C-alpha cells in the first residue's frame, strides 16, 4: 500500500493571531508553525500501516521553503519521503489541484488529509481532492482499518458515529480518534538524524485557477467585562439569562 499524507503547516494552537499590512495578511511574526493537528493524527495512523502492514508513506505539502522545517518533522516521525509543491497555498481548490497532480503521478492507494486546517479552516481540500481523482472519500474519519482493498472506517456525525465500508483508492479527512492522543509521536534524535538523509523533493506547481481570496482580516471585538454573580445568589444568574441575555 502506498500512502500520501497531506500536511498543512499551521500556527501552533497557542499562537496569538494578529494581522499586518493593513489587515490583509496574517502576521507570522513570533509564530511557531507546526503540523496541522488533524494531520498529525493521520500521520501517526500512517506509521501504524507502515509498521504493521508494510505501507510506504510519503508526505506532501503545498507551501514555500519556510514549510520545510514542518515536513522535516514528518520525516523524523517516520515518513519515507516528502514532496513540497513550491507555491503559497492560496485557496483550498488550488491546493487540492496541486495535490491531485502529486497523487496521480505517484500512484497512491490511500490519501490521508485532515478534516480541516486549523488556520484557515477551509475543510475542503480532501473532498475536492477525492472528487478530482474519482476516489472514495470519508470525512471526519475517526477510525480506519484496511485489509487488501477493503476498508472499514468510522466517521463522526452530529451526535454520534457512523460505520462505513468502502474500498481503496480512498481519501480521508482525518481527525482525533484515528489514533489515541497518547500515541502521537514526537521526533526522537535518531529520527531527526535519519530525516536528514531522506528525500525532500521540490516540485513546481501546475497552473490552476484561484476561486476564492481572503481580502481582509479582522480580530473579534474585545469582550466586555464579565458580570459576576455571587455564589449565594444563583437566582440572579437565572434572571440575567432570562431578562438581559434572553437565552432561557
Amino acid at each position, binding site marked *: 500500500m502506498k500512502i500520501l499524507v497531506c500536511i498543512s503547516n499551521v500556527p501552533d494552537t497557542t499562537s496569538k493571531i494578529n494581522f499586518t499590512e493593513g489587515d490583509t495578511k496574517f502576521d507570522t511574526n513570533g509564530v511557531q508553525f507546526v503540523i496541522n493537528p488533524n494531520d498529525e493524527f493521520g500521520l501517526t495512523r500512517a506509521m501504524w500501516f507502515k509498521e504493521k502492514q508494510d505501507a510506504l508513506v510519503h508526505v506532501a505539502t503545498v507551501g514555500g521553503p519556510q514549510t520545510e522545517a514542518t515536513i522535516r518533522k514528518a520525516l523524523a516521525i517516520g515518513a519515507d519521503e516528502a514532496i513540497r509543491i513550491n507555491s503559497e497555498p492560496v485557496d483550498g*481548490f488550488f491546493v487540492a489541484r496541486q495535490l491531485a497532480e502529486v497523487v496521480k503521478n505517484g500512484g497512491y492507494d490511500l490519501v490521508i488529509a485532515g478534516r480541516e486546517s486549523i488556520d484557515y479552516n477551509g475543510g475542503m481540500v480532501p473532498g475536492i481532492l477525492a472528487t478530482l481523482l474519482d476516489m472514495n472519500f470519508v470525512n471526519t474519519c475517526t477510525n480506519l482499518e484496511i485489509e487488501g482493498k477493503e476498508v472499514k472506517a468510522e466517521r463522526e456525525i*452530529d451526535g*454520534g458515529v457512523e460505520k462505513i465500508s468502502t474500498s481503496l483508492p480512498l481519501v480521508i479527512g482525518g481527525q482525533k480518534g484515528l489514533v489515541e492522543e497518547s500515541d502521537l509521536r514526537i521526533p526522537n534524535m535518531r529520527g531527526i538524524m535519519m530525516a536528514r538523509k531522506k528525500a525532500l523533493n521540490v516540485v513546481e506547481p501546475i497552473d490552476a485557477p484561484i476561486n476564492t481570496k481572503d481580502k481582509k482580516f479582522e480580530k473579534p471585538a474585545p469582550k466586555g467585562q*464579565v458580570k459576576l454573580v455571587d455564589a449565594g445568589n444563583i437566582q440572579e444568574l437565572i434572571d440575567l439569562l432570562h431578562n438581559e*441575555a434572553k437565552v432561557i
Partner: protein
Amino acid sequence: MSVIVYTESENGKFKKNAFEVASYGHKVAQLLGTKVTALSINADKVEDLGKYGVDKVLAVKDAKLETFNAKVYASCIAQAAKKESAQVIILSSSADSKYLSGILAAMLNAGYVPNVVAAPESTSPFMVKRTAFSNKGFAHTEINADTKIIGVSNNSFGVVENTVSAQVETFEPNINDNDFGTKSVEVDKVVGKATIADADIVVSAGRGMKGPENWGMIEELADVLGAATACSKPVSDLGWRPHGEHVGQTGKPVASNLYIAIGISGAIQHLAGVSASKTKVVINNDPEAPFFKAADYGIVGDAFEVVPQLIEKLKVFKAQNA
C-alpha cells in the same frame, strides 16, 4: 438564475439549520434580485419552507437516498443547481453538509467559503465574512468563480420569517449506482437529545469535575435546559466522556446561544472553539481562571455547590415559565 439552498432533514422533518439556510438564501436572493429554490431530500411538509422565504421547492423522494451519502447527495444538489442555473448554493455547517461541500465544489468548479457569519457584504465582487483561525479572527473573502457555495455558520444568521407561498415541484435527479463507493453500515446516534451541533444551549464541563462519576449533575443541568453536553479536551482524553463531546479548536466548534462552562480553565484552544457562542457563563472556583475574561456572566464558586443549586432554581423557573 436563482439561489439554491440545501435544506437538511432527518426522518422527514426539517432540521433547524434548514430554516436558517432558507432565511439566508432569501437574503442573498434579495441582494441579487432573484428567487430562492430549496432542494429537499425525503422531507415531508416541504411547503413549510415558504415561511422562510423559499419561492420554490425541488422535492426529492427516493428510497435510495434514505441514508446520507455525501457523493450521491452532492450529485443531487449539483443537478438541482444546473436545472435552476443557480449562481449561489447555500449549505449549513452540519457534519453532513461539510462532508459534501468539497465534493460539490469540485463537481461544479465552484468557489466555496465555509463558516460564513453574515449576509454577503457585496455581490459584485461577491464578498462574505467568515470566521478563520478557529474563531480567533474573521476573514472577508471574495469568491471569483461563477458558481459560489456558501457554508453558513450555525446560529450566525438566525432563522428569519419572510412568508411567501412556496411552489412545490417533484424532482427526480439521476442517481448513479457507481456513486455509492462508500456505504453506511451502521449509525450510532443519541436520539431525542440535543447535539452540540444544533443545540441552542450547551452545558460543558472540564477537569474541575474531578472524575466521570460526577457527571450526573452536568447531565441533569443539561436536561433541565434541553441542552447538549460537552467537555474540554483532557476530559475526553482521559476517557471520562466520549470523544464526540470534546469541544474546542481541535474538537467540535460550538456556536450555541448559551454556553455554560463548569470547571474549565479557559485555555486558548478551548476558547477558540467556543467563542462563537453568543452568551457564555463560567462557573469556576478560581477567580483568576482565564475563562472569566471571555465570559459574559460568571460565578466564582465550587461547582459541587453551585450546580445543584442552579438545577433546583432552574426547575422552579421552568415550572413558572412553562
